């Protein structure tokens, strides 16, 4: 039989209120709009749970703040999923050749529009 303090050592740590709220937001991510006031660490946890449509809505609803430090890598994933790894590599290659760089959201949007 385990001693009481051993049992304690095994139990999960008490979630913080921020954790609990973040979980709730993730659960209701389809209602998410303007996230301009969210700290980056919250966005890092929440936004990977968005679909491309949901993330686009969040981006458009969030005025006056650049979300790309968090979302650029997410858009790259959506791009890869939508257009395949070959197209993605091709885009990266071309951007390197022309020494330009575009946000993955822009690239995703422009190809989706075609």
């Amino acid at each position: 039989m385990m001693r009481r303090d051993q049992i304690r050592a095994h139990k999960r740590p008490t979630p913080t209120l921020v954790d609990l709220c973040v979980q709730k937001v993730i659960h209701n991510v389809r209602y998410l709009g303007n996230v301009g006031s969210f700290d980056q660490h919250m966005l890092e946890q929440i936004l990977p749970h968005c679909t491309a449509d949901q993330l686009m809505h969040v981006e458009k609803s969030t005025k006056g703040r650049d979300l790309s430090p968090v979302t650029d890598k997410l858009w790259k994933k959506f791009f890869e999923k939508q257009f395949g790894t070959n197209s993605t590599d091709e885009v990266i290659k071309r951007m390197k050749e022309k020494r330009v760089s575009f946000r993955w959201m822009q690239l995703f949007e422009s190809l989706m529009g075609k």
Partner: protein
Amino acid sequence: MKKEDTVKLISAEGFEFVVDKEAAMVSQTIHNMLTSPGSFAERQHGEVTFPEISTTILEKICQYFYWHLQFASGKETEFPIEPELTLELMMAANYLHT
């Protein structure tokens, strides 16, 4: 409850919540306010005002403090969060390091 064991948390609208110091100290921010050396008014009077936290949210935060103590002592229940409070509560909790 002895007065020195409690702390008064005051919301933006001026509502006062008297809670155990032990509970309030679940918040790292409040903990720092109440324990940092020097003559902080918060420490002297055992009162902290939050001009940016509404009564509804502060009440919910006080409930969380007690839920946290219960959870830590082994009573693992769910903490209910109303969907309409979630975003405001998250901001306040973040500010309070809770």
